[in-house]
């Protein structure tokens, strides 16, 4: 007899991050701990932590002085997938369909490349009421 995979409601973590680069690691650590508590692998933890940091850093770095409102981070963890949503109220930036690495000695421009490389789905939705960076990563052995 084949066992049916157990499905349960996804766990959700919602955090507000001040628009300050120094606060991002705290949120990344909280996300790491949350995902670790739901059985994510070391690779999933490392990939989600880095993509979350890069996403938040981008939102903060693109915020003008008048746009420095908190960023909302939502993490949804199910048996099959991890979803990260980063919502900001900045004017945003143009999301490349496929980011390329910059020339070797450029000091910037690797953040979106890393995001796109480490998750299975990444897209950025801009609107006047806020921008959402939506990231999804399939879980190893997910159902």
């Amino acid at each position, binding site marked *: 007899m084949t066992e049916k995979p157990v499905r349960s409601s996804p766990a959700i973590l919602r955090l507000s991050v001040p628009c300050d*680069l*120094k606060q*991002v*690691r705290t949120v990344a650590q909280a996300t790491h701990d949350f995902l670790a508590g739901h059985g994510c692998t*070391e690779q999933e933890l*490392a990939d989600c*932590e*880095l993509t979350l*940091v*890069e996403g938040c*850093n981008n939102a*903060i*770095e693109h915020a003008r002085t008048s746009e420095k409102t908190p960023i909302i981070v939502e993490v949804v963890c199910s048996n099959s997938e991890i979803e990260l949503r980063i919502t900001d109220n900045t004017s945003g930036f143009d999301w490349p369909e496929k980011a390329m*690495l910059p020339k*070797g*000695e*450029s*000091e*910037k*421009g*690797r*953040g979106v*490349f*890393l995001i796109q*490389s*480490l998750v299975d789905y990444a897209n950025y939705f801009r609107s006047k009421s806020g921008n959402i960076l939506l990231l999804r990563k399939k879980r190893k052995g997910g159902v």
Partner: protein
Amino acid sequence: MKMEIHGDTLKISEVKELGAANANAFRDVAREAMGDERKNVEIDLSRATFIDSCGLGALIALHKTACARQGNVKLLNPPPPVQQILELTRMHRIFEIVKA
């Protein structure tokens, strides 16, 4: 973070994280310690638990300073998660990575 001078080499160790919050400070402190005389930098990453694109940018900035003096930057013992990011971003082609 700990820094020591050995001849024309600046040795940096006990780096735990290299990200947007501290990358510029890391670069500036290291450059100051290089002064005008040091042309090589060795960075022991064995204790590093996290690096992001800003941290990579700081390493490249030091690489450019060292190269301008005909020196180099060596990265020592990066743990697997850091090594993965170095390889993914092709940084392993720029830096000499030394594993014990």
